[in-house]
């Protein structure tokens, strides 16, 4: 069975044999950094193309089909265009904050990548508070967005950023509570432990109805947290031109754009880890022969398959539902999602204590 774990062990052993420990660690940092940036670039290209194709097919169009066979080089052509464009800084803007904001948003996306388990034994950093770390760091990105909106010195940007702030702070609660619902079952905050606890079946199947409710709430709340339609009021094209990144152009705009897609990938990866078992193959209880066949599919394929399935769901939402008004958005969170997820958490705790889950 193909595994990335043996490969990482070989690299680490070789580095430790050849170099003193500090330099070996440094080289590992460099390798991880390069891999993370490569993943970001690849994801950016793939997800932008995927979004445009999904959008086109849902709206009965063809989508990009001119650049390369079936249009697969469209996003690369767009990237080249964005690189060539001038990164304009408006005259009235706060220059330092204006130029810093895209990097903050990008850095947050990169930091959240750290505890995610991509495949069996293929972590950047397996910390014992992985889920807490993710929910703590991911709310920092609102600072980047507020910074962008404030520093642009434009009414559209400021309105977009303020809406985004209200939205992210509210929906953070629902995300946290639906994550907690699963943590109650696993009893551990470490991503690796959460995945290993789904050895005999994914939590969405084993946790009865509360797990399904938590999954739905998680999907709704992360869609809002990543500022995507139907919750994209912070960049509502029809009202605010482009919201907090109205004044950005060229590569600085591209960083916001990329960060949006990276954030989608990350929240979907977390969702896949918590509810769909991360890299754990599809196992049914004690059906050993069935489980054994499923084990032959490499673990990173399972991880990316589940993640892309969730990404597709979120894209499906985006191209189906109309945008909410700001009061409807906050109503949805405070009157519906939050009470339901609180009640759901209590129900799940009861199930966990009584041991009613499979």
């Amino acid at each position, binding site marked *: 069975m193909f595994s990335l774990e043996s490969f990482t062990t070989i690299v680490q052993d070789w580095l430790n044999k050849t170099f003193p420990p500090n330099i070996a660690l440094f080289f590992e940092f460099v390798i991880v950094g390069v891999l993370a940036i490569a993943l970001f670039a690849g994801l950016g290209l793939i997800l932008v193309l995927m979004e445009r194709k999904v959008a086109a097919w*849902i709206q009965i*169009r063809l989508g990009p*089909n001119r650049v390369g066979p079936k249009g697969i080089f469209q996003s690369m052509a767009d990237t080249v265009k964005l690189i060539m464009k001038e990164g304009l800084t408006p005259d009235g803007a706060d220059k330092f904050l204006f130029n810093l904001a895209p990097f903050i948003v990008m850095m947050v996306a990169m930091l959240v990548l750290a505890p995610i388990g991509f495949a069996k034994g293929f972590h950047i950093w397996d910390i014992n508070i992985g889920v807490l770390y993710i929910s703590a760091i991911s709310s920092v990105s609102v600072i980047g967005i507020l910074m962008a909106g404030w520093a642009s010195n434009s009414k559209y940007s400021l309105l977009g950023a303020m809406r985004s702030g209200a939205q992210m702070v509210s929906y953070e609660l629902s995300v946290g509570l639906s994550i907690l619902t699963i943590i109650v079952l696993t009893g551990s905050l470490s991503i690796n432990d959460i995945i290993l606890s789904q050895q005999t079946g994914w939590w969405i199947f084993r946790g009865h109805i509360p797990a399904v409710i938590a999954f739905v709430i998680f999907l709704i709340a992360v869609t809002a947290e990543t500022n995507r339609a139907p919750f994209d009021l912070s960049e509502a094209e029809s009202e605010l031109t482009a919201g907090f990144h109205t004044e950005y152009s060229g590569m600085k705009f591209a960083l916001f754009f990329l960060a949006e897609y990276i954030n989608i990938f990350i929240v979907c990866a977390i969702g896949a880890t918590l509810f769909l078992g991360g890299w754990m193959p599809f196992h049914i209880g004690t059906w050993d022969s069935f489980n054994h066949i499923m084990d032959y599919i490499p673990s990173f394929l399972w991880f990316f398959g589940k993640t892309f399935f969730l990404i597709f769901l979120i894209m*499906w939402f985006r191209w189906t539902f109309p945008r909410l008004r700001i009061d409807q958005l906050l109503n949805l969170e405070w009157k519906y999602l939050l009470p339901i997820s609180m009640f759901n958490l209590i129900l799940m705790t009861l199930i966990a204590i009584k041991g009613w889950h499979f």
Partner: protein
Amino acid sequence: MFIKQYFKDIYNAVRSLLIGMNRTGYYFTHHKEIITQQYPENRLELNLPERFRGEVILKHDEHNEHACTGCSACELACPNGTIKIINKFDISPDGKKKKAIDTFVYHLELCTMCNLCIVACPTDAIKMAQNFEHSVYNRGLLTKKLNQDGSKLRAGVE
């Protein structure tokens, strides 16, 4: 009562959202529904919708006859003066004067394809055609005479 309404709202919301997703999911998986025309490539087998409006034409039958009585209802209905009808008077064999059109002038460059002239026409003489390739180098060519040379009013049309 409030609780009942609360859950009813949730149920209705989820239901209507699922109906929407069902529709878009259908379009996503059924590519035969795609309506985009890849125009320059499929120029010969273009498949335009029935109600597509490209230009106004005057219908002529095989005897080079049309149904336009020259009543100028279309000219009056046109919001931006696209149509100008110039009438003449034919002398019929029994000595009566009969009104007929001399030239049906159509300014394509002014037309917004609003369809009001077709609605206004009492004899159903004009219709919207689907030809949309109107580019010319001289804008004078866009002013068209719609009645063909030597055409006359179909017998029996009043």
